[in-house]
């Protein structure tokens, strides 16, 4: 018996609906249809009057959730794809994110963003938006990489009083399986050492954690390098203590992400390590991201657009050669 990443997301929502009457779900095709990815399958039947289909109106979906949150509810909004949250950008970054600072009234909404690429999805169903949202004050951005984190971080995220962007990776939905959802439960704001090592640190999050582990396995087998992989778990807050402690052990940093290369999470990690831990570094810190083009449609182009175990190994070899 195994549990997939998307099972964990559905189970977390079922638990939230069952235990907290303030929670309701709002999104496109999520009620009787169960959602484009079936993340809400069966929930409308199990929780009548708590799961609502919305029109194709991302701006109004988040606007409605914000209003409901002011009235004491804890809405979870499903974006059909993270890419479409650009239509809701204004409500997220200007209405939700500024509200607590301006008025003292927090906005406990959770916006689920089915993120990242899968083969054949193309430019508008593949994006990784975490860096954009993390740039704005007033938002919490979660990027679970494991089945257990997918479960616990959704529950913990909904419990927070602030707006949460929950970035769930579509590639992990059915590919990633675990024996149970009750794995290690760390608090939001704490990163995890997924794989200990001593020669270099890879800081990753979401699906890239698994690619980093693959690359690390390969390098160990090939040349005996022991690579430490840090899973950020949340990109905001960013657990620099764990990152700096790892860099202190290894002296080398590769920041790895699936988003576009200009700015973003990897740039933030490199910048902060350089600023706060320059003395710990034995080599110039490196970044590896997707390429600076829209996400391509064809699986061959897509596989070369995002970081892969091969390109991660190449980057690590360069880093280790200094």
């Amino acid at each position, binding site marked *: 018996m195994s549990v997939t990443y998307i099972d964990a997301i559905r189970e977390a929502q079922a638990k939230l609906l069952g235990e907290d009457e303030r929670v*309701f779900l709002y999104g496109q095709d999520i009620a009787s249809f169960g959602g484009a990815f079936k993340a809400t399958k069966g929930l409308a039947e199990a929780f009548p009057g708590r799961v609502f289909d919305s029109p194709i109106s*991302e*701006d109004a979906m988040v*606007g409605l959730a914000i*209003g409901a949150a002011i009235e004491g509810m804890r809405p979870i909004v499903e974006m059909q794809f993270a890419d479409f949250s650009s239509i809701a950008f204004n409500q997220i970054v*200007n*209405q939700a994110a500024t*509200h607590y600072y301006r008025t003292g009234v927090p906005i406990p909404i959770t916006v689920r963003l089915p993120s990242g690429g899968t083969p054949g999805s193309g430019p508008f169903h593949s994006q990784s938006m975490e860096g954009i949202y993390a740039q704005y004050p007033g938002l919490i951005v979660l990027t679970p990489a494991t089945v257990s984190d997918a479960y616990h971080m959704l529950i913990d995220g909904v419990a927070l009083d602030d707006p949460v962007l929950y970035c769930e990776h579509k590639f992990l939905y059915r590919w990633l399986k675990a024996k149970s959802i009750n794995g290690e439960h760390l608090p939001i704001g704490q990163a995890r050492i997924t794989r200990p090592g001593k020669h270099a640190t890879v800081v990753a999050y979401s699906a890239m954690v698994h690619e980093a582990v693959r690359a690390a396995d390969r390098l160990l087998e090939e040349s005996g390098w022991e690579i430490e992989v840090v899973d950020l778990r949340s990109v905001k807050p960013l657990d620099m203590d764990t990152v700096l402690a790892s860099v202190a052990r290894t002296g080398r940093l590769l920041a790895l992400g699936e988003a576009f290369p200009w700015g973003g999470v990897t740039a933030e990690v490199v910048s902060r390590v350089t600023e706060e831990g320059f003395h710990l570094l034995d080599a110039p810190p490196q970044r590896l991201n997707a390429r600076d083009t829209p996400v391509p449609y064809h699986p061959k182009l897509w596989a070369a657009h995002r970081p892969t175990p091969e390109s991660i190994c190449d980057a690590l070899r360069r880093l280790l050669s200094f």
Partner: protein
Amino acid sequence: MLRSRILENKLSSLYKAGKIVGGVYLGKGQEAVSASLGTALNPETDVFSALIRDQAGRIAFGEPLLDCTRSYLGSVEGPMRGRDGNIHRGRPKEGMPAMISHLGSQVSLVTGMLFAKRLKDPTSRAVGATCVGDGATSTGSFHEGLNVAAVEKLPLVVVVANNQFAYSTPNYRQFACGDLVERARGYGVGGFSVDGTDLIACATVMREAVRRARSGDGPQMVVAQVLRLSGHGEHDDGSYVPEDLRSGHYGRDCIEVAIRQLTDRGIVTVDEIMAWQEQNAEEVQRAVAQAQQEQAPDPYQEDWSALSTRFPLCQSGNQPIAQ
């Protein structure tokens, strides 16, 4: 209406004297529309999401004068504590959401408040209202919000104060339909037109729109024809408004019209109005004086956190910006 006009004249003077930092946006000429809406609502149960020309409606709905003067004058005692100013103020937990500058955005927010009220209590009779201008009706946010409210058949009242210009852009560069009220049918909501310079007409229409929303008829849209009797803000002289519009029907001052309506019908006397004016001028003066005496926000006392959550394990998430 009177109190709003007296207050806004004072705000204008303070702005011109350099006592107010940032913009000053007035509702001169739109008081009949705004006050009629504010009066038609029940502050105990309802929601009023005011826009930039709703000083009169805010007063009618029960917002204290001090909220206005403190926000404009940057007092740390105000509801926004100097973190936001002027017309962006509000008390969201008391049915007065704080607007953002992105027009049309409040429509879905009020819709969400009503959605939640209905979830919590299916017998809720609360109504939510918001105002927009003619310009905001061109936004996607307005369209999405009103459509969702209509799909959910929520008790929302949207008042469109068509003051002929969105900043300097005239109606004919803003929309191509003959009259904005025609859109109500397209959304499947109730539609009303009213002469926004006529207080009695406004009061009648707003009361009816609110009544229908409250009785379960779904969203209502009221389109009021007005002309703002000031610039977009006090930095703007409104010189783009042609003379024939200024001297035409909608260029008349709704407060003068209201005074005539009320005195002609014997509802109030001129002496009573003079007394109201005097009393309101005193109250405005007191609210200004008090806000002026209060402390400005202190950057060293700010916690500089945009989140209510504190992450003990991880200070970096909400680290103060280095001084």
